[in-house]
């Protein structure tokens, strides 16, 4: 099977699956997991191709750029495609039972979850494959609209309110991005990332970058444009929260990375990079402090996401002088966060199922009922805080190393302070869970499938650190990750 077909199928399979799941809702779960498995196979195939030979590229319709659209898998895309496929598979497995039966009036959420989820998968795959500015806009919209519909699935007032807020933010973000695309097209006459490299200069270029960055920050919940994330997370079904935190916001971040380093590489000043880093520091501090004072588990995890995304922001000023090691560190951290956060949200979902609520102070003794889920949260927490040997540690270690080497010690301090704050809120959470309190009587058990799929992801977050070499080899081939070391 040629590389072109692999890339096309990565998008077409989920689309076909979504259509089928829409027409035959009873088959939804099976179609969903089947597509997730096939997507994983395709992603592995693409990554192997990248490792063995060189980046996959294919011009759609046989039209070469700049007229046509190019799909491309290089080291960076391969990592994200794999991440999407693996996390997506586990979320699909979890969702097999999480939504209840698809029949009757109560089954509305279960019936529509699978088509919407598959559309989201198609959109994210398309995003990681695309090398064309306008094509990215369409995938951004596809993913944004499906994410909004998924958040609104719960049907409660708070769910609909937060979905509506997310919709406004998402759409304005897309329009900001699109205006940037217009300016870039007017100035450079092309929509392809590689052809744009080096041409993004002058007032149109800078304004376009500013607009697109603002738009993507909104969609990626990057401080200070993160305000839609916590409410959306707390009222969405557990697998949707997991997908939002682990996958959807990474899409916008990915586009930002490509824009800044691949297209606009030459024209970036230290000043702008440090500004982004400052936003990251603010995100880490603000998010962690908020997480410390939350009373509800899902909100705690949501603010933790805001904080963790701040680390990814710090990556910008560090990456400019870094080379492959910094990128490896950043991407390991990104992947570790995706796994750990997904695991935490799914476990939170289990806890809510068992206890009927997620108020942290009243969760004493839950360890007796859901030991696996609590263990999962602990394991995920280790990665989030960055303790060895988890992947979170490896990522932070590489970032710290880059910071020290480049003399940007203020980011080093931020990372350390941030890790301490993360430890603080994780300890607070777990201490409540381990209290042997007597109030836990009416708690329901949760079927093992739920707990084990969440655990699998936490274990992945743990073990991912050992695959650092794989990340490095994948990223070696990415031409524009320059620099020594």
């Amino acid at each position, binding site marked *: 099977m040629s590389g*072109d*077909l692999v890339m*096309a199928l990565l*998008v*077409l399979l989920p*689309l*076909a699956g*979504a*259509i089928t799941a*829409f*027409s035959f809702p009873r088959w939804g779960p099976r179609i969903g997991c089947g597509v997730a498995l096939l997507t994983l196979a395709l992603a592995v195939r693409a990554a192997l191709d990248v490792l063995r030979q060189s980046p996959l590229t*294919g*011009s*759609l*319709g*046989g*039209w070469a750029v*700049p*007229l*046509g*659209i190019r799909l491309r898998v290089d080291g960076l895309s391969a990592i994200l495609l794999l991440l999407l496929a693996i996390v997506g598979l586990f979320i699909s497995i979890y969702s097999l039972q999480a939504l209840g039966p698809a*029949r*009757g*009036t109560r*089954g*509305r959420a279960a*019936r*529509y979850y699978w*088509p*919407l989820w598959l*559309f989201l998968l*198609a*959109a994210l795959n*398309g995003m990681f494959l695309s090398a064309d500015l*306008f*094509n990215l806009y*369409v*995938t951004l*919209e*596809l993913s944004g*609209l*499906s994410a*909004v*519909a998924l958040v*609104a*699935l719960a049907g409660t007032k708070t769910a609909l309110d937060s979905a509506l807020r997310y919709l406004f933010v998402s759409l304005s973000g897309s329009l900001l991005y699109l*205006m940037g695309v217009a*300016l870039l*097209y*007017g*100035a450079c*006459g*092309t929509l392809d990332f590689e052809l744009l490299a080096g041409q993004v200069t*002058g*007032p*149109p270029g*800078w*304004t*376009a970058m*500013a607009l697109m960055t603002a738009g993507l920050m909104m969609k990626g919940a990057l401080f200070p444009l993160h305000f839609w994330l916590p409410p959306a997370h707390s009222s969405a079904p557990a697998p949707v929260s997991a997908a939002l935190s682990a996958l959807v916001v990474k899409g916008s971040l990915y586009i930002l990375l490509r824009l800044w380093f691949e297209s606009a590489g030459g024209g970036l000043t230290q000043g702008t990079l440090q500004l982004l880093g400052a936003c990251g520091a603010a995100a880490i501090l603000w998010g962690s402090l908020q997480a410390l004072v939350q009373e509800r588990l899902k909100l705690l995890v949501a603010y933790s996401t805001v904080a963790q995304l701040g680390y990814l922001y710090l990556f910008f000023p560090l990456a400019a002088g870094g080379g492959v090691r910094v990128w490896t560190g950043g991407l390991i951290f990104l992947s570790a966060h995706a796994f750990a956060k997904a695991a935490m949200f799914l476990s939170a979902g289990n806890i809510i199922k068992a206890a009927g609520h997620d108020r942290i102070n009243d969760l004493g003794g839950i360890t007796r009922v859901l030991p696996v889920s609590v263990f999962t949260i602990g394991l995920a927490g280790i990665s989030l805080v960055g303790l060895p040997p988890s992947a979170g540690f490896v990522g932070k270690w590489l970032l710290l190393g880059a910071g020290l080497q480049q003399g940007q010690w203020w980011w080093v301090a931020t990372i350390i302070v941030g890790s301490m704050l993360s430890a603080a809120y994780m300890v607070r959470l777990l201490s409540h869970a381990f209290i042997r309190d007597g109030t836990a009587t009416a708690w329901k058990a949760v079927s093992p499938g739920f707990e084990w799929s969440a655990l699998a992801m936490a274990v992945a977050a743990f073990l991912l650190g050992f695959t650092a070499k794989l990340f490095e080899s994948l990223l070696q081939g990415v031409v524009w990750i320059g620099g020594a070391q």
Partner: protein
Amino acid sequence: MIGRISGPLMAAVVFVALCWAMLGLPAEPAGLGREAFGALERSGVTNPVTAVLLNYRAYDTLLELAVLVLAAVGVWSLRTMPASQFEQRCDPLLAALLRFLLPLLLVTGGYLLWIGSSAPGGAFQGGALFGGALVLMLLGGQVSRRALARTSLLRAGLWFGLLLFCGVGLTMTFGGRAFLEYPPERAGTLILLIECGATLSIGMILAALFFGGRPEAGSGKSHEGEQ
């Protein structure tokens, strides 16, 4: 007070920045026009916009169809059709107008679909007219609840265009070509084929977006018992 001026202030900043950027644009932007016109004979159509939409950048259009289907699925997932939609009184004046207007809309829509290969027109334009016709039928009280009960057929209509598009694109790969690469001698026919399916779906989706929710369960016949 800060809140009251921050909004307009932000808007003013954005406006000024945009104007500054636009002043820096070339007076005659290079764009892709030259390449687009240059490849026109191989594209199978003579209207350059249709060539871009359905040939050079057909993948964008495919994804756009996916967005359309997604919107319909999303709207269906949110609520059932508001009952008020069915309570339109059938105004006799409107009914008389519809008798004339609906066939005209259908014919014009079909014309736009056909003429899209050589003049402004195409699937979206035709589909918009079909969608408009369906909306007019609802507003004129011509659509009953029973008519909407065959939900499996409705669903099929919604995604048919997307499926056809993907299918045609994939079929091209069997011939050793890239995805969505049409052989130049058949390109025109393939584009028309795709557009036919797309027009049908676009019309139904636009109408579904207007109808505002999923149709309620039919009286017993649906094989799933509930949609």
